[in-house]
């Protein structure tokens, strides 16, 4: 079987020799098993296909910054024209950017910045996401009440920034109390168990749950529904994944924060092409987060 595989490999034609004028883009995605990133990456790939004369190669860093650095190194040896990087980490992915710059290859950052600025950045600020979500909570509770916060994997950029945004809001509303906070590692089942335990420990002491992503918000939602106390608790997540949107539509989930995966994906390809053709390209293209509730849901359901 192995021989067959190797045979199959050698049978493949030498990956097309570069055609003159073809633009070769290397794209390192943060983690394709995460729904939001998968959506963004798909947008990048699909959009690049619509552009003639463009070849895009996508690799998946599986949330490992050191792997991502390796992938950028690989791109450099492959002599790509431009790199699109969806960084795993604010800090740890920085050497990848430095390496590309040192090699004189333009690099576009998407969805997450790094310490060293890229040649262009398309995305939004995760601090805003946390801020928007907690603001919605504060508005709903009138600045008074108990809140539970479910973290993503501790120490990841998204977790840190979303928490920072939320903390700004807590600082603003002294009546808003953080009753408890705990990680559920972006995982729905873990968030569900966590919320079940919280319902035992803090019953009646909280009026809202803010989860760092929609997966965990869905878990919290299911636990609250099962306990029959959803009506007393405001639940909000981030990302606006499909299931969250339909839950908002059904009036189960109160709100989520929309991040424009497709917009970011397309924007990054556009920027990459401009850079590759040595045309002027805006340094930053911020696509803001937006709160999604039942009222404006129709704009997001496509």
């Amino acid at each position, binding site marked *: 079987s192995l021989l067959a595989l190797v045979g199959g490999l050698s049978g493949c034609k030498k990956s097309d020799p570069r055609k003159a004028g073809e633009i070769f883009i290397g794209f390192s995605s943060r983690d394709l*098993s995460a*729904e939001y990133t998968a959506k963004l990456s798909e947008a990048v790939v699909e959009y690049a296909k619509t552009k003639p004369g463009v070849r895009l190669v996508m690799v998946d860093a599986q949330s490992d910054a050191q792997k991502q650095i390796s992938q950028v190194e690989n791109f450099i040896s492959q002599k790509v024209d431009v790199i699109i990087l969806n960084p795993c980490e604010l800090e740890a992915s920085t050497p990848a950017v430095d390496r590309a710059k040192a090699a004189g290859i333009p690099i576009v950052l998407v969805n997450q910045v790094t310490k060293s600025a890229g040649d262009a950045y398309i995305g939004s600020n995760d601090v805003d996401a946390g801020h928007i979500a907690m603001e919605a909570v504060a508005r709903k509770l009138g600045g008074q009440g108990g809140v539970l916060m479910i973290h993503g994997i501790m120490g990841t950029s998204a977790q840190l920034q979303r928490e920072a945004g939320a903390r700004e809001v807590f600082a603003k509303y002294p009546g808003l109390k953080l009753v408890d906070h705990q990680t559920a590692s972006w995982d729905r089942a873990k968030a569900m168990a*966590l919320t*079940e335990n*919280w319902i*035992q*420990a803090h019953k009646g002491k909280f009026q809202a749950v803010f989860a760092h992503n929609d997966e965990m918000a869905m878990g919290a939602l299911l636990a609250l529904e099962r306990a029959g106390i959803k009506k007393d608790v405001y639940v909000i997540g981030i990302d606006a994944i499909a299931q969250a949107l339909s839950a908002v539509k059904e009036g189960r989930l109160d709100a989520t924060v929309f991040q424009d995966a497709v917009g970011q994906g397309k924007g990054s390809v556009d920027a990459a092409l401009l850079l590759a053709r040595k045309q002027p390209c805006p340094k930053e293209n911020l696509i803001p987060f937006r709160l999604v509730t039942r009222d404006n849901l129709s704009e997001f359901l496509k």
Partner: protein
Amino acid sequence: MLDRNLLHRFGILIVILLIGLGLSVCTETFLSLSNLTNVARQISINGILAVGVTFVLLTAGVDLSLGSVVALSGVACASFAHPGDHTVALPIAMGLLTGAACGLTNGMLVTRGAVAPFIVTLGMMTVARGLALIASGGRPVSNMSPELTNLAGDFLGLPIPLLCFAGVTLLAWLFLRHFRLGRYIYAIGGNENAARAAGISVANVKLFAYTLCGVLAGLAGVVLAARTTTGQPNAGVAYELDAIAAVVIGGTSLAGGVGTITGTILGVLLIGEINNGLDLLSVSSYYQAVIKGVIIVGAVWLDRRQSRS
């Protein structure tokens, strides 16, 4: 052997009771019925997996693919569970069959291929995860029929996942104690060559153990999908570690041949209790990790010390 196992059980049991005592003093809720039902619901998935992997560990094997197989089976189940699609039996069957297929493949590679279980199941861990992502396109498979998601609900006041876990436990216990095949599993784990020389068909027994473990991972996948109302391709990461930990805490040797289902259940209870208790005490996430690790090692150490004296 009986006495020794009683002591084993005793040691962990004491730790469980002590922690329980501490928790019911420190929190008002730990001993409440609703919290205990919670714990029961939360341990069910790990419990089902732990029972399955007990069989494999007893043969001196290992199964690292559990978590991925849970995800793949959950996706398989959810894909056939859209409302009005089919009866509730089909998605369940698909989940179990998927698990069985993975387990059977593991077993075949271990027995006929003579590849080390660690490598085989590590490979399956990657492959099943990849297949789950491919089958679902990387997105959670949602829109499951209420008939299926109700499986995470209650029946006669008891959580259905708990009933599944209890049923599986009972059958496994009966099996290991009272069936010939059960005895063969111990014999193979104790000394594979001697078992072969005693006329036991080692390959078939192992194949059975891996397949059963796969089926139970499939069941866990179905329960998880029902509980989270989706088939998540990235669910179940590192579940195998929790399951194996529960089994080993319960006194099963990784070298095979020694261990009981009762022990496994105690291991599952201890882990579930720690997870629940730390949340109830609102211990910070960072410290939760440290405390959990220390308690588990400490419990096993205490247990082994006691059983030696």
